[in-house]
């Protein structure tokens, strides 16, 4: 046993910190069945030995009502700057009793196990406690691999007991949880499957035994229902997993190219699902009714199918349900009356609303999971420990990845030195280059927009608003989409070229700059097209919605063709050239950013077109489906994984946000503008004859007025939808809420900063204390016997004082001793298999020691300022040292006597306590007398009182230690 407690001293790492707890193999968790468990345990674990007694002493001496009076007083005196989260106001129990209970239970803990903790189980167990379980169980798991034979012999029983105890506690904590929470909590336990099963069955057994008496029909029923739903959920989830589209393909891609490339394919799949959903919505609510009632389109006699329609979407297609014009404004009379106007309007509206909903949800989700506060500083650590992709299973890919990582590490090493050396002139040069290229890129985008504008006007003048076009006329319509797609293909190449000349400090910034420029380009082109449609086309054609729908159809088709061409030229030819003609070029990378932007653009087209051509998602589905296989083949044949893996998850978040913000919001506003402000064509479509699309609702309301029960709908329409006040109020409320959340997040940010600072401080304190401790331990090494060491310390102390050496080191010494003692004590306890909350008490021991250190530092300042008064201080000391000496002597006596009689030492200890208190008071008074006249401006508590407090802490630790033994 002795060797064990010494082991702690010889191993410096052992003393290290709160994270020690991982290694505390015999550490225990306490029965945290009290909702205030954490506080209470902290209280008991750390200060109970010192302060609790102290408090009760005060109570007995001064008749103070509050049991913690002394403690709090002490706080005010010396430790204002220590966060006092440790103190809990625990009603009912006096700490003293508590303590006694504990010490008695320590003595017989080996023989009997006392499972029932007092008080009801906690009603709310939060994530905090879950984490604690995990911490504990982790510690427990880590016990086994490095078990030292020295401990194995005597602890087997203790460990067994402890584990049972822990398990029981765990089970008890799990019982009151709801089923879902419980399952989650069990899933999160870092245990083996067997143990989890065991615990689960125990929890269930416990639960059923508790409930068996009060089991009524109702609870049974509800239980069954909830079980049924849960099973359904599981079944759906598991089938989704097994039947998921392209499961194997995804695995293959992930294995060969890693997560970042996989994210492109996941995005593609997500968009595909999204389009399938929108197709189903549109098809079932708009198209099916029309098809049912008018199976054949009412095409004019001279229009036939010529083949070119597949590209242009004009001609024969013009009269089908593909476009807006194919629908009528009639109310279809069947089993029920089906109002086409309303259904068209509401389907589009609801679809758009659902899109907003889905996009916002997925964007915020992805933001929540992947947003990290700017962590560029931790790049190296991240690269080393978190960047390895465990999915990758392909041998070549693994080799390549290793290479890439090596290159990246080397680069980051050189970058570090490089970025510091940048001079002002170099910076200015870089800035000039950025500016130049940005201007150039924006100019290019604007030029593209302008050329599209003029092209559209030119085309406008050549076409006529006739029922059918000649073949040549039809072919001419292809010019605009061709030029647009060409621009989308070629201009980004220039952008990539620009990117090569610029020096970006980080890869991510480079990618974002590229993406931003491409977004500008596409937005400007789309903006010009939309302007053209809204302002020119809508005035010229008799059935202008259909014309717009056709243009969009052409754009979608050409975009698809250029995607194919792009992957052929960009990837296949580039691969051929790179491998045969110019080996220096090498195999092309898969450019995730460009590819994702292409997808986003394609999706935007389909959103804009949803009003003009409700079945556009069908084309989109086909397009994405083919694209998936095409890209997969092209990827595996031609490409290599990107050399610089950015943080894929963050990129994905950025892309979803991009999809939402400029692109979806843009198309939403275009559709909204069309519906609110533009006059629908008078010749065709569901809204012919109306001023604008939205007046459909007004017409509906008029109809509803005749129906008696619909007053409330009309009321809502009049008072809410059509009233400005409502929108005004909503806007104000949203702004206020936003502002509040913004403020809250600001506050949190500050708090995070403070907490980080605290961690750093604590680390510094710890290393400082460790150094001191090691210095102090060197002379003590020779003392093998622990008891001897104790007495030696006692005898050594007065010498230190009398020598008048640097009293700061005295205080330090005290503090360290106090800490040492606590730790020894704790180790001893734990070797006996007694439940000591080691994780908590060790950190609280640390706090204690830190407090002492702070005091010591304050004192040091003091000394440097007024060194001439040194003598009087040490006189204050003398009292206390005497007392301590005496108590030390007594304690060593009590040390041997204590185990027989547990009640007896309490009285002797309390008498010592009393003496110490008196001595302290005297010392303080003396101090005040000494200091107050001499330095009225000096308001800090005197140094000697600080010293005494440190000693007291130590003393009490000692008392407690002996008492508990």
């Amino acid at each position, binding site marked *: 046993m002795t060797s064990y407690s010494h082991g702690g001293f010889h191993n410096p790492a052992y003393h*290290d*910190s709160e*994270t020690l707890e*991982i290694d505390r193999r015999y550490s225990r968790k306490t029965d945290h069945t009290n909702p205030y468990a954490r506080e209470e345990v902290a209280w008991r674990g750390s200060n109970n030995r010192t302060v609790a007694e102290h408090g009760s002493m005060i109570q007995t001496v001064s008749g103070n009502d509050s049991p913690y009076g002394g403690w709090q007083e002490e706080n005010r005196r010396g430790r204002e700057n220590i966060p006092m989260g440790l103190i809990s106001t625990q009603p009912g129990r006096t700490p003293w009793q508590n303590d006694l209970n504990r010490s008695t239970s320590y003595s017989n803990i080996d023989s009997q196990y006392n499972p029932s903790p007092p008080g009801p189980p906690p009603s709310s167990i939060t994530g905090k406690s879950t984490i604690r379980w*995990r911490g504990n169980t*982790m510690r427990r798991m880590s016990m*086994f691999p490095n078990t030292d034979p020295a401990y194995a012999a005597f602890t087997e029983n203790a460990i067994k007991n402890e584990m049972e105890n822990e398990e029981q506690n765990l089970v008890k904590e799990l019982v009151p949880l709801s089923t879902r929470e419980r399952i*989650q909590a069990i*899933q*999160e336990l870092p245990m*083996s*499957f067997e143990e989890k*099963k065991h615990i*689960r069955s125990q929890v*269930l057994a416990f639960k*059923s035994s508790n409930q068996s008496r009060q*089991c009524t029909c109702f609870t049974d029923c509800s239980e069954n229902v909830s*079980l049924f739903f849960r099973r359904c959920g*599981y*079944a759906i989830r*598991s089938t989704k997993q097994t039947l998921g589209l392209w499961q194997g393909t995804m695995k293959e891609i*992930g294995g060969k190219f890693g*997560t970042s490339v996989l994210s492109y394919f996941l995005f593609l799949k997500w968009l595909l699902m999204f389009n399938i959903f929108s197709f189903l919505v549109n098809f079932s609510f708009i198209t099916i009714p029309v098809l049912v009632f008018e199976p054949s389109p009412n095409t004019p006699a001279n229009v036939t199918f010529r083949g070119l329609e597949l590209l242009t979407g004009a001609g024969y297609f013009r009269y089908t349900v593909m476009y807006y014009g194919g629908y009528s404004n009639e109310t279809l009379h069947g089993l029920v009356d089906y109002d086409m106007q309303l259904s068209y309007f509401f389907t589009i509206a609801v679809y758009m609303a659902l899109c907003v909903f889905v996009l916002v949800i997925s964007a915020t989700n992805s933001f929540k*999971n*992947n*947003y*990290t506060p700017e*962590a560029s*500083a*931790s790049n*190296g*650590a*991240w690269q*080393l*420990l*978190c*960047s*390895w992709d*465990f*999915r*990758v*299973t392909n*041998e070549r*890919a*693994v080799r390549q990845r*290793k290479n890439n*990582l*090596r290159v990246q*590490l*080397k680069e980051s090493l050189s970058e570090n030195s490089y970025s510091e050396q940048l001079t002002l002139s170099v910076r200015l040069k870089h800035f000039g280059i950025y500016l130049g290229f940005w201007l150039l890129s924006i100019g290019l985008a604007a030029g593209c927009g302008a050329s599209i504008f003029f092209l559209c006007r030119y085309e406008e003048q050549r076409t006529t608003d006739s029922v059918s076009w000649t073949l040549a006329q039809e072919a001419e319509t292809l010019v605009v989409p061709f030029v647009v797609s060409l621009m989308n293909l070629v201009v980004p190449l220039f952008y990539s070229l620009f990117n090569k000349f610029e020096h970006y400090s980080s890869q991510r910034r480079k990618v974002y700059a590229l993406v931003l420029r491409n977004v500008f380009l596409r937005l400007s082109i789309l903006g010009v097209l939309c302007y053209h449609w809204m302002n020119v086309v809508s005035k010229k054609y008799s059935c202008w919605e259909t014309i717009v729908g056709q243009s969009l159809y052409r754009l979608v088709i050409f975009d698809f063709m250029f995607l194919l061409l792009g992957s052929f030229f960009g990837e296949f030819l580039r691969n051929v050239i790179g491998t045969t003609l110019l080996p220096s070029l090498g195999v092309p990378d898969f450019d995730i950013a460009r590819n994702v932007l292409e997808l986003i653009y394609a999706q935007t087209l389909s959103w804009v077109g949803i009003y003009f051509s409700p079945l556009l998602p069908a084309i989109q589905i086909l397009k994405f489906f083919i694209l998936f296989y095409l890209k997969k083949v092209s990827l595996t044949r031609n490409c290599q994984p990107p050399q610089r893996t950015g*943080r*894929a*998850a*963050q990129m994905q978040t950025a892309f979803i946000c991009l999809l939402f913000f400029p692109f979806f919001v843009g198309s939403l506003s275009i559709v909204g503008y069309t519906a609110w402000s533009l006059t629908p064509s008078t010749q065709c479509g569901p809204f012919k004859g109306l001023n604008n699309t939205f007046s459909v609702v007004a017409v509906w309301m008029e109809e509803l007025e005749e129906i008696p029960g619909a007053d409330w709908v009309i009321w809502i329409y009049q008072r809410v939808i059509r009233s400005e006040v409502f929108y005004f109020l909503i806007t104000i409320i949203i702004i206020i809420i936003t502002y509040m959340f913004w403020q809250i997040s600001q506050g949190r940010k500050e708090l995070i900063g403070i907490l980080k600072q605290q*961690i*750093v401080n*604590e*680390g510094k304190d*710890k*290393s400082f204390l460790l150094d001191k401790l090691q210095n102090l331990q060197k002379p003590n090494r020779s003392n093998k016997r622990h008891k001897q060491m104790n007495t030696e310390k006692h005898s050594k102390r007065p010498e230190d004082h009398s020598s008048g050496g640097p009293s700061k080191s005295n205080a330090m010494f005290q503090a360290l001793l106090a800490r040492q003692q606590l730790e020894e004590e704790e180790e001893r306890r734990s070797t006996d298999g007694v439940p000591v909350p080691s994780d908590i008490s060790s950190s609280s021991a640390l706090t204690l020691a830190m407090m002492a250190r702070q005091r010591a530092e304050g004192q040091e300042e003091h000394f440097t300022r007024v060194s001439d008064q040194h003598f009087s201080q040490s006189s204050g000391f003398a009292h206390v040292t005497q007392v301590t000496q005496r108590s030390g002597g007594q304690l060593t006596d009590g040390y041997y006597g204590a185990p027989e009689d547990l009640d007896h030492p309490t009285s002797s200890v309390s008498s010592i306590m009393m003496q110490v208190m008196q001595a302290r008071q005297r010392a303080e008074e003396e101090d005040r007398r000494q200091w107050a006249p001499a330095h009225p401006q000096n308001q800090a508590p005197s140094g000697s009182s600080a010293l005494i407090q440190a000693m007291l802490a130590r003393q009490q630790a000692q008392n407690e230690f002996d008492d508990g033994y």
Partner: protein
Amino acid sequence: MGNKQTIFTDEIIILLSFFFSLHARYHELAPHLVPMDYTNEPDCKLPLALIVNMPELKENPFRNRIVESFSEDGMGNLSFNEFVDMFSVLSEMAPRELKAIYAFKIYDYNVDNYLCKEDLKKTLNKLTKEELTPEEVDLVCDKTIEEADLDGDNKLSYSDFENMITRAPDFLSTFHIRI
């Protein structure tokens, strides 16, 4: 009250597909060792050498460490239960904390519950095919410790590691092996 049955079906529904595919894989590794029927012969373990030859692990630079950290005896012998543990931690559904705990174990070569410089060096060498010069390895390790070590003890404790993980959202998706 059919409680037994409830437990049974519940379990099955959660784990059915996962379990079957896993057991098929486990069986496939050593058809002559692993029984299909677990009623009589519950105690069988596969050695490390067999398990690291799975295509999912074969090319992984940490394959030995992964298997060792999940085996009870620390030598890499896995029973079927441990095998299930391994792939459930590495699956999509495992929570972040669980993944972090096991990732920490994997990187902790000397099982002292700290990632010290030696551990990091080993990791780095596995990740870069030992092609960096010793000075570079030193530099990278020092930099890593400097960046991630919050409490200044010159090695990474679990809380340091966890803190780093929370700032690396990719980790959840990359610490993942599809079976």
